[in-house]
């Protein structure tokens, strides 16, 4: 079941953008014909990340990397945001200041161009008759598929996957929280 986190707080950063004139708060409404579905709230991606208690690591990364401004801007992104627990499970190699570039590289592998709702993804899977792929801001793609009526996303090598059970629709993009890291990592004990 997909639940939508919608908010009507004003977003001053976008107050002058055309997005605001079109973005209205409201419940998600399906539009099977076009694939255009959920109406977004007025929060930016950065604000959506900040308000989710399970995404504090991503929030910190976004701030430290200077991505907050990009995520407050007009360009649309969709972020499959790994939870704090998922990122913590990466272990010592991915902790501390020294790990920041690697964590940002990991995060880039979870950012997609544009505005993808879970319904868009499901529609594409149905239309394609199977899994679909989307390019990331990293170096590879992510694969989406339906498994037992659950929408799942996996890394391009298929090594890790996560269920998409929630979506946060913002004025300039979508946050899809997940409980896994979709990028191949390894520890130094090899």
């Amino acid at each position: 079941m997909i639940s939508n986190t919608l908010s009507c707080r004003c977003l001053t950063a976008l107050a002058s953008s055309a997005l605001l004139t079109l973005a209205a708060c409201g419940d998600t409404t399906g539009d099977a014909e076009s694939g255009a579905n959920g109406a977004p709230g007025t929060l930016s991606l950065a604000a959506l990340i900040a308000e989710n208690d399970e995404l504090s690591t991503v929030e910190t990364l976004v701030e430290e990397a200077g991505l907050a401004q990009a995520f407050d801007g007009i360009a649309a992104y969709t972020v499959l945001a790994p939870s704090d627990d998922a990122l913590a499970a990466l272990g010592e190699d991915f902790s501390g200041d020294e790990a920041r570039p690697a964590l940002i590289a990991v995060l880039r592998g979870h950012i997609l161009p544009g505005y993808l709702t879970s319904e868009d993804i499901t529609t594409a899977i149905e239309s394609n008759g199977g899994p679909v792929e989307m390019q990331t801001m990293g170096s590879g793609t992510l694969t989406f598929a339906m498994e037992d009526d659950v929408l799942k996303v996996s890394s391009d090598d298929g090594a890790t996957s996560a269920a998409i059970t929630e979506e946060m629709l913002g004025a300039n993009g979508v946050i899809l929280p997940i409980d896994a890291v979709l990028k191949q990592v390894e520890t130094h004990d090899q």
Partner: protein
Amino acid sequence: MKYLLAAISTLALAAVPAMAQGNGNGNGGNNGSGGGQPAHAEHANHSNGGGNAERGNGADRGNGNGNADRGNQANRNNGNGNRDDNVRNENRGNGNVANRNNGNVNRNTVNRNAGNGNRNASRNVDNGNRGGQDLNRGNRGNGQNQDFDRRDGRDGGLIDRIFYRETGLIDGCPPGLAKKRNGCLPPGQARQRDRAYRYGNYSPDWWGLPYGRGDYFYEDGYLLRYSGDRISGYIPLLGGALRIGNPWPSDYGYDRVPDYYTNYYGLGSDYRYADNVVYRLDPETAAITSIAALLTGDEFTVGQPAPRGYDVYNVPYSFRDRYRDGPDAYYRYNDGYVYQIDPETRLVAAAIELLL
């Protein structure tokens, strides 16, 4: 892989007669009379046929001029916007120009299509200031780094390759490490420890960088490349050496993007583009202040198949009423553009700008 301005190259295409006109002017004489304002989406849609033809011409002209321009900078280290057209033509035959012909095509075209004479002139000044340095890097890339050669063979001439040639590996080792390590020669044991430590087996591709596998490892915010037992080059990493508050690494190349990008992403004048990231800088200190945009750099070229990895409808919400998937057209968003795609052939039919 990714080539940023492939997308931009289609801008040239979709960018309507007005853009083509600007292109021609800019190329012909640096008159500064190019159509500086990007075309609107409707224009792009309505001008597929004629627009394509003109684009093709414009692209050819842009390529020749642009490449030669680089040769000019390399040889002369000047950026005289008024003179470079002539010089470009004269320089077409030299080796430097030949090397760059493969890579610069669309980038130059894009810059010219989206820009105008004034912007070209300012860009020339930039290049002139660092032209010698860039040329050296490019030559090193051609001569030593097979990754660059591989890129040459793969894409047939897209803008981004130039970026990577210019921004790519910086020779030597980072200044901080050089001090710590007595001239970039790490003690053997220290090196072993480093390499066994973090991320030792990650290729540049893992970091989102367009270089093939090699002898790389991470340290102090840089990706270091080894040749034998010596650090032969390095790449500053986003969040590491390229983090908020840090000055731009002096040898790390960068470039500008076409006007449409500056408008769409609200870049202003103090930004630098490198390795698919657009950075904002403090105009006085040149310190990084924020990330303005992340780009995929994927190639969408009108008349060519859409790149892999765009299976899902992803048009920004505020444009969905206008660009909805239907039986006659699909729409996909990437790097500030919406691309119209033929559902049957999967060919890109048009590139649409989103400025309102």
